[in-house]
């Protein structure tokens, strides 16, 4: 397991796009070698989320009806949205929204580990960005569960860790054009 100094993401994998007219949903699947209970904790507890997720949560996402403020990490000027957990069936199904994105997580016990599936709706133009971002987040989550926390890699920080290459791979896979590069990509990191 690499640490933060040696981490390089692998190639695009485990992602699908469900196209229903203009409504596109990104599906990401990742097999983790830990029990659904452990994974559930990492998905819902703010202290765990802080180690890998692209947002800060000011409360637990683990109970249906909880109202939680999510702050997008790395957004210049700050970006905060409030969410209400619409479904939390531990350790199986978790549903809440992140701004105008719905997130649905499913955890399935397989061979002593967990098959984690995320469904999220993202604007068509940004779906490859989302896939690349979550890919890196899941790598960090995997390390965290294995006891090798790398620290969160999100927002502009992800640019230093091969996000751009992953983004292009997913865009290619989904058959979409890569939009303009953000300004900090053209600068030396």
């Amino acid at each position, binding site marked *: 397991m690499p640490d933060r100094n040696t981490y390089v993401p692998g190639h695009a994998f485990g992602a699908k796009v469900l196209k229903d007219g203009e409504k596109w949903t990104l599906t990401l699947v990742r097999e983790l070698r830990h029990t659904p209970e452990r994974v559930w904790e990492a998905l819902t507890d703010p202290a765990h989320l802080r180690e890998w997720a*692209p*947002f800060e949560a000011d409360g637990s996402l683990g109970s249906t009806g909880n109202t939680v403020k999510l702050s*997008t990490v*790395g*957004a*210049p*000027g700050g*970006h*905060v*949205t409030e969410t209400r957990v619409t479904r939390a069936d531990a350790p199986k199904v978790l549903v809440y929204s*992140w*701004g*105008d*994105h719905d997130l649905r997580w499913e955890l399935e016990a397989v061979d002593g580990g967990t098959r984690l599936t995320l469904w999220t709706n*993202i*604007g068509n*133009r*940004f779906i490859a*960005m*989302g896939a690349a*971002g979550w890919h890196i987040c899941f790598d960090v989550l995997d390390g965290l569960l294995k006891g090798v926390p790398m620290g969160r890699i*999100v*927002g502009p920080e992800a640019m230093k860790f091969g996000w751009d290459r992953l983004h292009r791979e997913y865009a290619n896979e989904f058959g979409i054009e890569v*939009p*303009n*590069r*953000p*300004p900090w990509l053209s600068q030396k990191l």
Partner: protein
Amino acid sequence: MKIKLISIYVDDQEKAAQFYTDTVGFKKKADFSQGPFRWLTVASPEEPDGTELQLALNNSPEAKAYQEAQFQQNRPAAMFFSDDVQADYERMKERGAQFTMPPTDVTASKIAILNDTCGNLIQITQLKQWQG
């Protein structure tokens, strides 16, 4: 130190992107998202590496209140400089822009003000040239 970016609030980023490119004639410079957050900027084709205008979503009550107050006081959210206000006015008007002030002579400049349809007034300014 340089001024490379200014920010305005808009009530709809998709609509704003369209307005500032199709109607105003700027070019999209950056369009990047992290979850529900979207970093969107445009720049003038006359100065592609010049100052960028960030079109930020007014997604908090504070941002909305600030934007509305500016608008109600007829205060432009941004000011662009033009070499020919009359020509830019006619070009944008043809593309459907609503001007709240047609080209008007004021002290040291000629200005026009338009509504960006995303909650802002924008002033176009042409400085008067003096003969020495």
